């Protein structure tokens, strides 16, 4: 194996950048220039990694007996997700220049963003499970610190802590699974585990598989852990884009896709993955339809689209899930940054107080509409191709009921995408932001445009990469793709186009999308006959009771803590007595056991 220094450089350059930005101190201009320079350099490095995927290069350093090796491996997943994290993260940094202008604590902000990008790149490139766990928890830490960036706002602090607790809880599954793998095989090396997985005791493999599924569901905000993502919307909007498109939530989908070949033989595992994906996609779609907060609607749509990817993995469509992840990253970053431009100038996130912005923010309107078309899956934008491929794969190899659920969700997606665009840009304008003395509404600033335009072009064009992308994955992932499945390279895109256009499921899906659009156009009719739907609407607005479950658990923990408080007297002598008694108990147990 050849050693490539490009790999560790891509991981640790943003971290070096974070330190440099912090060291820049009070020089605001210098700080921004440094942050952009490091983010851009890392984006370039991550793109340079892509050719490495085909060669037999890698990088490893021995960290001592207990930790194994810090080994980085550029295979298809790794270079692809590293590029997504670094490039989209870089665009979010550029966007922040306008968005965060005049805010306090910018040094902390840019340093954490760079730290976050580096952690995500490290997570996807690591070939050592223990390092995956470490990077996994670092991304959780960064998301907590950035969601709570406005740390004088109680809602932001609560949202950040919620994200930290829920993703940390899921992380236990990953840690336990990794330790079980180490106990069984004596190594944390992922390729070794993939090769040996079928020799593991089935019971143990099932525990590991479901532990990883819990970790992935918590990280990607899937059922039943979906509640943290909407509350994370208290973060500055570029951070939302970063979490939703570049760094955080992709990690769960990556984990499932990476280990799919190892766990696909575990009874019930693929079904559980399909179930998690389908339920998340559907209920999140419903909640997106009733949300009035622009960012919350987008957050639910992320949960829903991630549900599509998880469903695809459960149905065996590794390529489809990753291709949809690529499309989703681009158009969701576009939607969030577009929403950021709107929120920045209007000063509210409530869509009912927006409306009529298409004339005042023409560029933002155009790019947001492109993003919404991709979200809804309308041709020829990238979301259409990846979603059709995904649904077709699901129809062929997944359970039929799940396909029906996903089809309905595709219709819901079109409905809420259209609803967002209408309420923000085309509804009758509201008086509040035209009142004298109010901040004048203006279009996106120059730095915002630099971030928005490439993403809009990307939403129009990334589907052209389908052929090369499939070839890249098929060539470099021997456990996922058999030797006969190596894609034909660039010509594969044309094949995909023919395949998608000629498949009947595509037309079915488009018909469902059209129904979704008609449902919005004819919403007046629905509103009259919709009295029967009111309980469903109320349930969706209440988040289907998952908030209540969260609160119940939090209260139970708090109550237990209050109850156990009596044991903490604060008198040193009692503590010593307890220690002595514990030692005596241990000695007695040893004596009896021996």
């Amino acid at each position, binding site marked *: 194996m050849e050693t490539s220094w490009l790999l560790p450089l891509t991981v640790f350059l943003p971290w070096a950048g974070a330190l440099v930005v912090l060291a820049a101190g009070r020089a605001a201009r210098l700080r921004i220039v440094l942050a952009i320079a490091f983010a851009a350099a890392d984006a370039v490095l991550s793109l340079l990694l892509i050719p490495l995927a085909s060669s037999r290069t890698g990088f490893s350093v021995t960290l001592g007996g207990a930790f194994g090796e810090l080994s980085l491996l550029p295979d298809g997943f790794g270079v692809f997700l590293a590029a997504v994290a670094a490039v989209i993260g870089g665009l979010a940094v550029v966007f922040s220049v306008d968005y965060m202008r005049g805010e306090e604590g910018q040094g902390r902000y840019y340093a954490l963003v760079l730290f976050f990008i580096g952690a995500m790149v490290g997570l996807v490139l690591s070939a050592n499970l223990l390092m995956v766990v470490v990077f996994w928890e670092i991304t959780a830490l960064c998301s907590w610190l950035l969601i709570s960036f406005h740390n004088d706002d109680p809602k932001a602090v609560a949202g950040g802590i919620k994200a930290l607790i829920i993703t940390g809880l899921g992380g236990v599954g990953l840690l336990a699974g990794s330790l079980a793998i180490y106990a069984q095989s004596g190594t944390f090396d992922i390729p070794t585990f993939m090769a040996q997985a079928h020799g593991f005791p089935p019971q143990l493999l099932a525990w590991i598989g479901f532990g990883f599924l819990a970790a992935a569901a918590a990280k990607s905000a899937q059922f039943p852990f979906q509640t943290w993502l909407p509350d994370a919307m208290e973060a500055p909007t570029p951070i939302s884009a970063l979490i939703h498109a570049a760094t955080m939530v992709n990690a769960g989908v990556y984990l499932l896709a990476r280990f799919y070949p190892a766990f696909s033989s575990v009874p019930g595992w693929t079904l559980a993955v399909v179930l998690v994906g389908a339920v998340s996609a559907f209920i999140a779609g419903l909640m997106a339809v009733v949300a009035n907060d622009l960012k919350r609607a987008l957050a639910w749509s992320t949960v829903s689209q991630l549900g599509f990817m998880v469903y695809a993995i459960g149905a065996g469509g590794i390529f489809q899930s990753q291709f949809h992840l690529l499309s989703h990253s681009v158009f969701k970053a576009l939607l969030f940054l577009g929403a950021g431009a709107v929120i920045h100038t209007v000063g509210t996130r409530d869509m009912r107080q927006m409306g009529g912005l298409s004339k005042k923010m023409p560029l933002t309107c155009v790019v947001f509409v492109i993003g919404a078309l991709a979200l809804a899956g309308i041709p020829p934008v990238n979301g259409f191709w990846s979603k059709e491929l995904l649904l077709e794969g699901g129809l062929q190899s997944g359970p039929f009921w799940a396909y029906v659920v996903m089809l309905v969700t595709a219709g819901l997606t079109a409905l809420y995408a259209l609803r967002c665009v209408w309420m923000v840009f085309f509804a009758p304008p509201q008086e509040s932001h035209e009142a004298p003395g109010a901040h004048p509404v203006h279009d996106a600033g120059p730095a915002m445009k630099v971030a928005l335009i490439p993403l809009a072009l990307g939403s129009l064009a990334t589907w052209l990469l389908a052929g090369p992308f499939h070839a890249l994955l098929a060539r470099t992932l021997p456990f996922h793709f058999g030797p006969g499945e190596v894609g034909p390279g660039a010509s594969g895109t044309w094949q995909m186009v023919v395949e998608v256009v000629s498949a009947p499921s595509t037309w079915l899906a488009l018909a469902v999308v059209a129904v979704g659009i008609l449902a919005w156009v004819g919403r007046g009719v629905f509103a009259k006959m919709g009295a029967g739907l009111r309980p469903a609407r109320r349930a969706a607005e209440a988040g289907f009771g998952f908030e209540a479950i969260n609160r119940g658990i939090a209260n139970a923990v708090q109550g237990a803590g209050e109850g156990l408080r009596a044991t903490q007297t*604060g*008198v040193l002598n009692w503590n*010593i007595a307890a220690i002595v008694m514990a030692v005596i108990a241990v000695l007695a147990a040893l004596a009896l056991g021996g």
Partner: protein
Amino acid sequence: MTGSVWTIAIAAVLCLVAIGIYGLLILRNLIKIVVALQVFAKGTILIMVVAGGMAGKPAIGQSLAITVLVADTAITIVALALAIQVRRWCGTLDTRVISTLRR
């Protein structure tokens, strides 16, 4: 060395540890607690030397004992410095008075 020497040494260790624990259990003055902790710690250091000698590897026991002594000294200094601060801010060294967890 004969076996009786080891017996005496172990008895001494047990005495030191017992005195230390007894002190920690009944004393309420922070300075006295630090002293009791020191007695206890000296007992454990002595057992390292004794155990090394009994196992026929005195060098390991002695080097461990030296290491613990160094760490122990640093901890004692910090504990006494904290006790001084407690006296300055609370006006007392009584652990029952300065405990605020119950209130």
